[in-house]
């Protein structure tokens, strides 16, 4: 007898035993009722999705001793109250519990069990118009199911052997070797889960990665251990007016004024290839840190002028930093930057208002650049010193080669220096290779493996590799590098090894370090781990506090906000230049800096989590302040600014970076922004649209607003229920355009489709239909604009706190939160809310929690 007919029979027998007169046979269930339940399913899935998704990643295979043996339909409760609609015929909402394995042996079936639990728990199921279980029935069903789900989840939830992701890998190599290796781009992009790229389960490995690890480690070792004498820093002074291999800058006398002392005044915005303010006379001859010093002044201007320093090879330069040239006394600029061989710099005036594309037309008419009276950026001669080496030899070389001598004489078995006279690389020599190799490989591997002292037994394979290589070539240097390569490709280096249950000292130290510094534990943390004091709460708290105060915390802020808020997508679209002419690199740079600084401020000053929804301050520089329409903020540094009451800003959702990553370059979508808010701020994960429902195609011709289109879309029964939850925050955020500017009317592009020259600064848009930021939440509360929505959301503070707790726990442990984590998460939420919701306190709460301290 097949399962289906078996369960069907069982159901029939349940029905005959059923005494509740309300229960209708299925044949009578009207199509309408079935559809209504279908829609209700989506509504309730919305509320519950956060719990479902949390369980999704867990590889689940319940043993037959737990839950129901064959099929969910074997459960009396399910048979009695669920199968009427969720059987293979009706499949209400696409759910067929006859199909649902009692073993919950797949991600889907696990999610369904949790879903079933949650919906029965909040009394959304069975539907109100169907037979209801008694309170006792419901309670005992839930208690039993929860007990089993908790037990199963607890058994399996531990963080799975977690590979370092590529940022962690690069950070770790940099910290281990104390050289700035650039290997991240060599490695394939990491798998993501819930937006995070440090979740063990999602971090696969393949031969492709392995190959790149070999390559990256070789580069890193060679860069760290050159063996050569300390490089001498060169120091010279350069002028923008000087020529280079590409000849003299053609802009002198046309768009730039060159003064006798080597100062150059730039009048143009540097967009035209031939008049880019590139320092032609300088290219870095060695890769390393350089100190760059010069004076900058505003010229013929009564206000300071801002400019960007770009760094890179001539064609491929990226913004390094923004600076201010002062009025009157020139302002000294002092930059330390990492330059690769062949890099140079470029200095581009960016504001306060845009500079002209070129001025040479007017200059020609005036009869000379001296007569030009526009404002300019005066760059005095530029003093460049480098490469600057702080520690020589690097930590990596000291670990691997100690104080051994290196020389670049040709070894016997190698070719002589070639005809071009290039010198051979330095190679280390040892007079007692057997002893030195043991000693040094030990120091290198112990530093790399983050586990303190290693036994000879653990190190034996690396010694053996050294011996084999040395035997082949008698080349000590090469054999050492090969053994070191093996250390950096070993699973102990590439993975974070944790034993089940309570974490012991070293794994706990690693977990803490990778959480807050995104790298291996530093010396003090390893010492604490070695003394085994880390497992006591006070010491753990002390170490956490120390890391929170270290510079490396910036790595945490950047990586966490990249994933949590999706800041990593800031470059995904470039706003339409015709409609958003005010978007510039400075604005983009400051946007990201603002959001990071904001989260950093919450963390440093231990401010309440509710600031995520609304704050009375923002972290701004002048560019951002201008964008937000806030007066009185001068200069290019970010600072805490109290927000005037008439400014519609404050909180994370009104930050330009967020408004940009949640829009495309041309139009905003309340749906996308709504989902952004639900998933990242409120912790709800809306289900995907049902199959076959097409996405909304934006129509920006101005005839219809997105709102109007969406209203039409929302009248479709299929969409309405979910979108009643998704869209409202997005409606309120319609007050902000794709670059986060405040708007009351949509901008509509005008004009022919003709090429816009980069210097075309004319407005190519006009005002379109007015923005309507009002809406109604699914619970019926309505709002007129985003500020009112903020007030409403503040009554849901618990959701906001819980969302942040879950995201931080996930990021900190490298695993998705499961069913059995619920009580601990609830405890953390309550503890945070009882103690003022401080973000810094929350980090401590999490680090002390069972979730963090267990595998």
């Amino acid at each position, binding site marked *: 007898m097949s399962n289906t007919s078996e369960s069907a029979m069982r159901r029939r027998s349940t029905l005959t035993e059923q005494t509740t007169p309300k229960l209708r046979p299925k044949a009578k269930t009207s199509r309408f009722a079935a559809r209504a339940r279908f829609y209700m399913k989506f509504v309730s899935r919305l509320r519950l999705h956060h719990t479902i998704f949390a369980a999704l990643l867990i590889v689940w295979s319940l043993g037959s001793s737990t839950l129901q043996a064959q099929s969910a339909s074997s459960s009396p409760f399910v048979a009695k109250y669920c199968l009427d609609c969720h059987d293979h015929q009706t499949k209400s909402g696409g759910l067929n519990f006859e199909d649902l394995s009692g073993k919950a042996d797949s991600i889907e079936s696990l999610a369904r069990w949790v879903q079933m639990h949650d919906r029965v728990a909040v009394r959304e199921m069975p539907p109100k118009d169907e037979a209801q279980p008694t309170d006792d029935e419901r309670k005992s069903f839930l208690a039993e199911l929860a007990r089993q789900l908790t037990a199963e989840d607890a058994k399996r939830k531990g963080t799975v052997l977690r590979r370092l992701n590529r940022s962690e890998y690069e950070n770790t190599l940099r910290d281990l070797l104390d050289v700035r290796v650039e290997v991240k781009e060599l490695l394939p992009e990491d798998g993501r889960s819930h937006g995070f790229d440090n979740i063990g389960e999602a971090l696969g490995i393949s*031969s492709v990665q392995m190959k790149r690890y070999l390559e990256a480690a070789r580069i890193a070792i060679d860069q760290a251990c050159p063996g050569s004498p300390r490089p001498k820093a060169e120091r010279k002074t350069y002028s923008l007016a000087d020529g280079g291999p590409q000849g003299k800058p053609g802009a002198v006398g046309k768009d730039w004024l060159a003064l006798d002392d080597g100062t150059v005044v730039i009048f143009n915005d540097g967009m035209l290839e031939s008049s880019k303010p590139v320092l032609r006379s300088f290219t870095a001859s060695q890769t390393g840190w350089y100190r760059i010093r010069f004076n900058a002044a505003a010229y013929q201007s009564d206000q300071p002028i801002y400019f960007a320093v770009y760094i890179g090879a001539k064609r491929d330069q990226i913004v390094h930093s923004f600076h201010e040239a002062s009025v009157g006394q020139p302002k000294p600029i002092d930059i330390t930057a990492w330059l690769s061989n062949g890099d140079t710099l470029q200095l581009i005036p960016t504001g306060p208002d845009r500079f002209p594309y070129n001025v040479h037309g007017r200059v020609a008419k005036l009869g000379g650049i001296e007569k030009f009276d526009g404002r300019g950026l005066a760059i005095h001669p530029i003093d460049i010193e480098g490469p600057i080496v702080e520690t020589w030899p690097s930590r990596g070389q000291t670990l691997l080669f100690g104080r051994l001598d290196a020389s670049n004489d040709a070894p016997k078995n190698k070719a002589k220096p070639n005809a071009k006279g290039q010198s051979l690389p330095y190679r280390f020599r040892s007079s007692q290779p057997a002893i030195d190799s043991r000693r040094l490989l030990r120091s290198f591997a112990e530093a790399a493996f983050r586990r303190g002292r290693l036994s000879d037994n653990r190190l034996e394979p690396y010694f053996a590799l050294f011996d084999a290589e040395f035997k082949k070539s008698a080349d000590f240097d090469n054999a050492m590098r090969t053994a070191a390569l093996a250390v950096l490709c070993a*699973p102990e280096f590439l993975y974070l090894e944790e034993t089940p249950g309570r974490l012991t000292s070293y794994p706990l130290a690693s977990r803490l370090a990778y959480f807050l510094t995104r790298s291996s534990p530093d010396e003090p943390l390893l010492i604490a781990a070695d003394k085994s004091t880390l497992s006591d709460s006070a010491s753990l708290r002390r170490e956490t506090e120390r890391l929170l105060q270290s510079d490396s915390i910036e790595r945490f802020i950047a990586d966490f906000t990249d994933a949590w808020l999706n800041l990593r997508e800031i470059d995904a679209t470039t706003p339409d230049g015709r409609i958003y002419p005010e978007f510039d690199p400075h604005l983009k740079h400051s946007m990201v800096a603002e959001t990071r600084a904001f989260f950093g401020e919450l963390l440093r000053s231990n401010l309440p989590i509710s600031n995520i929804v609304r704050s009375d301050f923002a972290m701004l520089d002048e560019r951002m302040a201008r964008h937000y329409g806030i007066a009185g903020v001068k200069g290019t540094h970010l600072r805490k600014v109290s927000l005037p009451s008439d400014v519609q800003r404050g909180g994370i959702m009104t930050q330009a970076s967020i408004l940009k990553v949640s829009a495309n370059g041309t139009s905003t979508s309340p749906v996308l922004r709504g989902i952004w808010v639900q998933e990242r701020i409120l912790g709800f994960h809306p289900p995907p649209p049902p199959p076959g429902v097409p996405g909304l195609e934006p129509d*920006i011709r101005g005839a219809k607003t997105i709102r109007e289109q969406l209203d039409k879309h929302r009248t479709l029964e299929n969409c309405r229920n979910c979108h009643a939850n998704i869209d409202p925050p997005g409606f309120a955020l319609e007050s902000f355009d794709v670059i986060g500017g405040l708007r009351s009317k949509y901008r509509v592009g005008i004009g022919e489709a003709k090429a816009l020259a980069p210097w075309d600064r004319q407005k190519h848009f006009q005002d379109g239909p007015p923005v309507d930021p009002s809406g109604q939440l699914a619970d019926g509360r309505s709002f007129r604009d985003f500020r009112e929505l903020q007030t409403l959301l503040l009554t849901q503070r618990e959701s906001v706190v819980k969302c942040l707790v879950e995201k931080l726990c996930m990021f900190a442990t490298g695993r998705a939160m499961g069913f059995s984590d619920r009580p601990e998460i609830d405890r953390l939420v309550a503890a945070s809310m009882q103690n003022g919701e401080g973000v810094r306190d929350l980090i401590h709460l999490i680090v002390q929690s069972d979730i963090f301290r267990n595998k």
Partner: protein
Amino acid sequence: MNRYSKWTPLRRRTVLRGLGTTIALPWLDAMSPVCVKAASPNAPQRAVFLDAGLGIHMPFFLPAQVGSDYEPTPYLKLIQDFRNDFTVVSGLSHKDQFGADGHASHSTWLTAARHPGKPGFKNSLSIDQLIAERIGSQTRFPSLVLSGSTLSLSWTAGGVQIPAERSPAKLFQQLFMEGSAQQLADQREQLQRGRSVLDTVLGEADKLQRRIGPRDREKLDEYFTAVRELETSLTLGEEWTHKPKPKVDAQPPKELPGNDTIGRTKQMYELIALALQTDSSRVVTFNTASGGTPPITGVADEWHNLSHHGKDPTKIEQLKLIEVEQFHALRHFFGKLKDFREQGRPLLDTTTVLFGSNLGNASAHSTDNLPILLAGGGFKHGRHIAHDATNNAPLCNLFVAVAQKTGIEVDRFAQSTSSGIVDLT
């Protein structure tokens, strides 16, 4: 003198030993003592997958009529010279491509994994890698994974993205530029060194395995597999260092400005054609360069923005200018494959080119009704084959047909169903 001098044929046993497995090697050019390619039923078949990640404006692409008498649309007009070498197959898609963002289906175009980027998502083997697994060992490069951006189309069975080569210049170097004797020796030394390292770490992983729990062990198994596969690939790589790279007349491609995405696509097409002609690889994926503001007269806006035209005619007009260039490039590529003859036949006849996009209506990020154009490979062409536009057929069915064409035995892939694509033979 090295026993693998360039005139000495590779010994079949040598290769097999290098592989460490018993993969059949039916048709390895290096094994024929003289470079005469006899017409053979085993003549190599190739597969090329080309994704236009920002979509194709469907009204300019999809013919209104079905069958062989279709009226060419503006884009198809541009490749009319090859009308009998390609087929437009409409009404295809993967199910459940709603992902983390509008462009997430990019990563699943060749894998058909569901809900890309959503919680619990793990990508799966891409069709090109399935083919490469079976036939890849016969060429210097088991597959070429190319891209005009950072995104690659190719994924391992474990769901790891295979990094794509983005630089035409570097690709040229890998394909055709022979290192000096010293460089080759160094390269071999590095390969041997790599193998010694892998030997050591395998031993370490073995010990680690005994210390950890069952779920961790599954993860560590991935590591084992990765290391073993790399050992094989390093061994094969070392064998290939003993065989000279093919000589071509072409010059190394020049570096183009960052925004010249179409220019880079053209360069890549040239190199793909050369790679196929020289039998350097038989499996290619190329995520055609997109984005930026291509230097085309009349185009002022970013390609991505234009793809979200929101029905704005001025944007559609610019988008068309770009996509026309895209089809010009494709035409040129088809021409290269058509003109080159192998055993008297056009290379295009033994090369299946699947050109299309992971987005149907890119302006709405829809993933249904994908634009798909199948060319070459000896299929019956010259038609527009339409599948149900409301209830799409699986694109995987077409993948299976393409894979079968390469001579491998496969009857299922990801979302494929038993009923095939309508009548391709």
